[in-house]
């Protein structure tokens, strides 16, 4: 048996550099660049030196005029530093999809999909080991030079769209990279330009170990976040650019919750105290000095009930907190006239939340005079029967609200036939990519299948960037070729939806490294992103019991809690 074992080198962090063309010479050049020259390299730990970061976590991309650097709506894991040349960021209106050259996901064709019928292995977790040997240049699914496309008529775009110029030494894209949110704007090259792309693992290290970078990132982060967020909000849409700028200047920027909130959450979950988890932002009964607008992440609106906090709703990107109370006070309606303004509900960060705080005075000056009065008050939602909210409390407590494509099974319909699991295996080389068990409440089960979270904490800590957002549809996918099986993502996932498997070669023999330690890969649902026809599990369910739902949607349970 020992003779037949096939061995290979164990993949390491940085064994797959971000850019294959990065050389020591380029690193030298970067180190001389003013933005890096000031960095105190001694503050970096020995296993991740500054030079190592530059060598392995960055790459230099060259763009010609009209080349797209990032597209609005793409999920990206890297930030960009302009080395030379100038770029344009399209502020509004956004470029049409066709101009962006956005292609649909590289789906399998019909016959290619059908061929899985006989090409799928009957042995578990079979891989072609030869793939792991030759790791090609741009295997990492970030937005990189591989996906560059070209804008045809730059002057016309500059004419029709509101744009802003980005010059050397400017950093952009850090918002998407660190906040794990889609790119907010399209950036394209105006002249020939060289741009340093830093994947977010590198960005994280730079921010952690260098104060100037931290300030730079935070400043840029704030500046970029505000402009777009306000412009997109229905509350500020009607304001003139000058007014908008005035609002933006006075708007505060804050984040709540830990970047890696999942670690503490999992701990609390294990103790059954998941409802206590979360960082308070505003408390019921406090005085509101302004409204809070969620830019990214989730926050829970709750009200005291008995001994606990009752979840009324949860807020996602674009939602506003505290508006009703302040508006009521301003408009001087009824009994509230003259009385002190008090928050009727509490707000708690669920995980990591980016917030904009817009001061009361700003609102009264620019917004309230022309605004239609808010129709409902969050506090009134407490009038609903307590039991009717049980499902919502469960979804919030379990943080399923994070899921954009959670696998929700109606157990009253599910005959436990496992057709979904077999369908999943049939589209993934014979291996299922989820387990048909999971937390249940009432007759609902959220199965242990990747939910493709709005805030994918699994991506935090991946040393190689193997886990990433698919550019095309935003599903969280794992690149099997670059995964080193460290298990960070599996451990990070608060929902137990990533599983480590020991892979085997085509003969079914386990793949091991030179020390005969098994080669492990992280696996999970990829939402059938390469298979035609969407998720096979949902399509296969014979009883309409299994659905992939977006918990951020209006009613993921489809009126189950009438």
């Amino acid at each position, binding site marked *: *048996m*020992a003779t037949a*074992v096939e061995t290979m080198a164990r993949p390491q962090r940085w064994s797959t550099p971000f850019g294959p063309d990065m050389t020591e010479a380029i690193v030298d050049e970067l180190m001389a660049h003013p933005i890096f020259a000031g960095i105190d390299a001694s503050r970096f730990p020995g296993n991740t030196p500054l030079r190592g970061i530059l060598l392995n976590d960055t790459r230099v991309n060259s763009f010609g005029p009209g080349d797209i650097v990032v597209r609005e709506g793409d999920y990206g894991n890297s930030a960009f530093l302009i080395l030379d040349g100038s770029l344009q960021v399209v502020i509004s209106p956004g470029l049409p999809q066709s101009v962006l050259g956005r292609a649909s996901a590289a789906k399998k064709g019909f016959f290619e999909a059908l061929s899985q019928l006989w090409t799928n292995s*009957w*042995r*578990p977790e079979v891989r072609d080991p030869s793939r792991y040997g030759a790791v090609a240049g741009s295997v990492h699914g970030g937005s990189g030079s591989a996906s560059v496309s070209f804008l045809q008529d730059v002057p016309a775009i500059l004419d029709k769209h509101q744009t802003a110029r980005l010059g050397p030494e400017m950093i952009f894209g850090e918002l998407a990279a660190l906040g794990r949110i889609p790119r907010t704007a399209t950036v394209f090259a105006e002249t020939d330009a060289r741009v340093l792309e830093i994947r977010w693992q590198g960005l994280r290290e730079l921010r952690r170990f260098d104060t100037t970078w931290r300030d730079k990132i935070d400043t840029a982060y704030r500046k970029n976040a505000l402009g777009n967020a306000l412009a997109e909000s229905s509350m500020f849409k009607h304001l003139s650019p000058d007014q908008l700028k005035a609002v933006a200047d006075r708007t505060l920027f804050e984040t709540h919750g830990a970047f890696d909130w999942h670690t503490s959450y999992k701990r609390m979950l*294990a103790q*059954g105290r998941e409802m206590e988890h979360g960082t308070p932002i505003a408390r019921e009964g406090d005085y509101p000095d302004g409204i809070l607008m969620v830019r990214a992440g989730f926050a829970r609106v709750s009200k005291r009930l008995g001994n606990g906090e009752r979840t009324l709703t949860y807020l996602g990107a674009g939602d506003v907190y505290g508006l009703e109370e302040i508006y009521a006070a301003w408009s001087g309606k009824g009994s509230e006239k003259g009385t002190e303004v008090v928050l009727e509900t509490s707000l708690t960060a669920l995980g990591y939340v980016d917030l904009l705080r817009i001061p009361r005075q700003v609102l009264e000056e620019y917004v309230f005079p022309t605004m239609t009065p808010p129709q409902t008050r969050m506090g009134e939602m407490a009038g609903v029967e307590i039991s009717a909210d049980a499902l919502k409390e469960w979804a919030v407590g379990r943080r399923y609200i994070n899921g954009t494509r959670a696998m929700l099974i109606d157990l009253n319909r599910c005959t436990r036939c*496992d057709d979904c*699991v*077999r369908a999943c*295996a*049939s589209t993934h080389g*014979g*291996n*299922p*990519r*989820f*387990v*048909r*068990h*999971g*937390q249940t409440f009432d007759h609902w089960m959220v199965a*242990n299948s990747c939910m493709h979270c709005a805030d994918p904490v699994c991506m935090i800590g991946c040393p190689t960037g193997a886990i990433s957002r698919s550019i095309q549809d935003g599903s969280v996918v794992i690149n099997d070729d670059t995964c080193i099986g460290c*298990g960070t993502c*599996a451990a990070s*996932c608060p929902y*137990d939806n*990533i*599983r*480590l*498997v*020991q892979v085997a070669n085509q003969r*079914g023999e*386990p793949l*091991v490294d030179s*020390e*005969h*330690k*098994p080669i*492990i890969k992280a696996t999970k649902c990829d939402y059938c992103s390469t298979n035609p026809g969407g998720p096979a599990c949902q399509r296969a369910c014979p009883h309409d019991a299994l659905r992939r739902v977006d918990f951020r949607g209006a009613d993921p349970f489809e009126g189950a809690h009438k």
Partner: protein
Amino acid sequence: MITDSDRFSYQKSSYERPNFPFVCGRACAFGKPCAQGPTFAGACGGTSQCAPFRNGDRWECRRPPSSGGPCADGPLPDGSCCMQQPPCKPRPSIRRLRGRISAVVAVFILALIAAFLHFEPDAFEGDRTIFSSVMPGQLSGAHSNFALADKGCVACHEAHGKGILAWAEAFVTANSPGENCVDCHAFGGGSASPHNMTFQTAGVTLPAGADVRTDCVMCHTEHKGQDADIAPMKDAQCNSCHETKITAFGRDHPAFGERFPHDRRPSIAFDHVAHFGKHFPEKLAAGETRTCVDCHDVGKAALTVPPGSFEANCASCHLTGITDRTLRIASVPFLEEDPFADTDLASICPPTADLKAYLLAKARGEDAEAPEADEYFFEDNGDNLPPALALALGVAADDPDGYIDAIGAFYKAIAEDGSDALAERIEGMPGAPGAAALLAGLDGELVRQAVCAWMQKVEYEAPGDVAGGGWSSDGMSINYRPVGHADPVARAWFDFAVNAEAAAKDAGGDDTVVAQAAALRDVLLSEYGLGNCTKCHAVTQVTDASTGDGQDKQKLMVEWGYQAVKDRPYVHYDHGPHVNLLGPGTLCSTCHKENAQANFSASFKQFDATKFEPGFLPVKQETCTECHTPGKVRQDCLLCHEYHLEPHFNRSMGFQSAGRVEAGGKEGG
């Protein structure tokens, strides 16, 4: 365990693989399954939990994380895993089991089919099996006794028992068992057309493109059991073709005709009204004649209740009316001159009685006076020629100048050659049958002697009156008197005479001949005609199909004998059950009521059978619907209507069954 809160974690729960064909044998025995699970081939994959690695001089555990990572105890000194267990015997998963059972069922079914082909070789290759497992059901009684027992399945199914090639051919080609029905069954028309009739014949025009080809198996479904009705035709099917849609007999059925049930007169001119009203009252009163059933044989009641024979019913009154009507074939013609004056009569005729006496006397030497011929014999005794003779000679019967030469030559020929000359002339009549029929029983010598006597101007002295009937002479003529009812000579003369005029015309005879033919017919049809046959027997104009030239030709026909009226070939009615139902005899009048106003007999004065006034009031539909109405008695189409035209059997079928009986007898012996 099921109650652990972290039971879903990636360390504790790895992928479940329901797509795999085997499950752990330990789990099947409700033991603890190992983490590895069975191999694809169905062998145990969990005898040891890792394959330890030799690192320098020590062994290191390499248990994968899915099984819990490196174990505490580490490998055994010999380098084997410390957690070894005997292999389990993996069991197929339920789905694989399902596949296996399906395969077993499939094999079982195929084996059944193969067994049919193997153990019933005759059915597949061979041809006379009478039982086969492929039979979809028992044949109806008659078919299982004849077709199946005689020829086996192949009687209807040609591919049966002929092997794979015949099967393959039969599979791809259209073949109908109905084609073989006509081996035994026959009809009054084509078997593949509706009602065995062509639509041209029926005078029906079909919409263009309508397929009117039929197949026996369209209606006749076999293999439905011994007692099954194999022709379950329903009214709706009739209605689908027939323009008159009948949903209920009492509602939609066309009203019965003015003269129902007959569209034409009967073959016998029996006037029920006259008989019951004029002729029978006394007998009825006297109890000698009772009712309808005296003449009609209720025992034979079917479509008709046939009357009894002439002898039984009519002879007592009508026989004499037959036997006292004679036919004159020859007589002394009226002549103003003697056409035989120049003829040496002595050389051809025997001497007359007077002459013979004179010659005898003379021979004895007695003095005798030579008999003197009566100079005015023909003028005194002669008469017009009888119509038959006039027609035979082709001369006018009342024109002595016209026929003198003909009759002279004819009588001379008879005197010389006997009755051959008569037979020759009779046969020479246009359209006449052989002399054997018309002159049957005629003694040639009688004719010759009579003619000779007349030529010698004496009355023929017949050798005495012939009792009963037949050919005889009264001295001045030769006559035929019917022997009784159904006299064949009389029938022959009538059959000939009714069409003689037309035959004469066809033969190109001159007006004289035609007139004589008409005269002969008129004489026969008159009440003085031979046997007075047409007093009762209808003479009817019919279509002569025998000419064969494709032209329909009308001819007259004497309807000899009682004929059931066949003018509704697709209707059947059975008096039998009705008679029994209503009580015999007296209650015939429930349906059949006499019509005293009808001039029944007038119809028989002419030849068109359809122009008649029945002696009975029409049978009304209401009469039937009293009982044949929803909720009471059947009223479907097939109760009274027959689908097929004249269904019968082929003669060959009789041979078949005879052969079978013979063969069976041999086997039995």
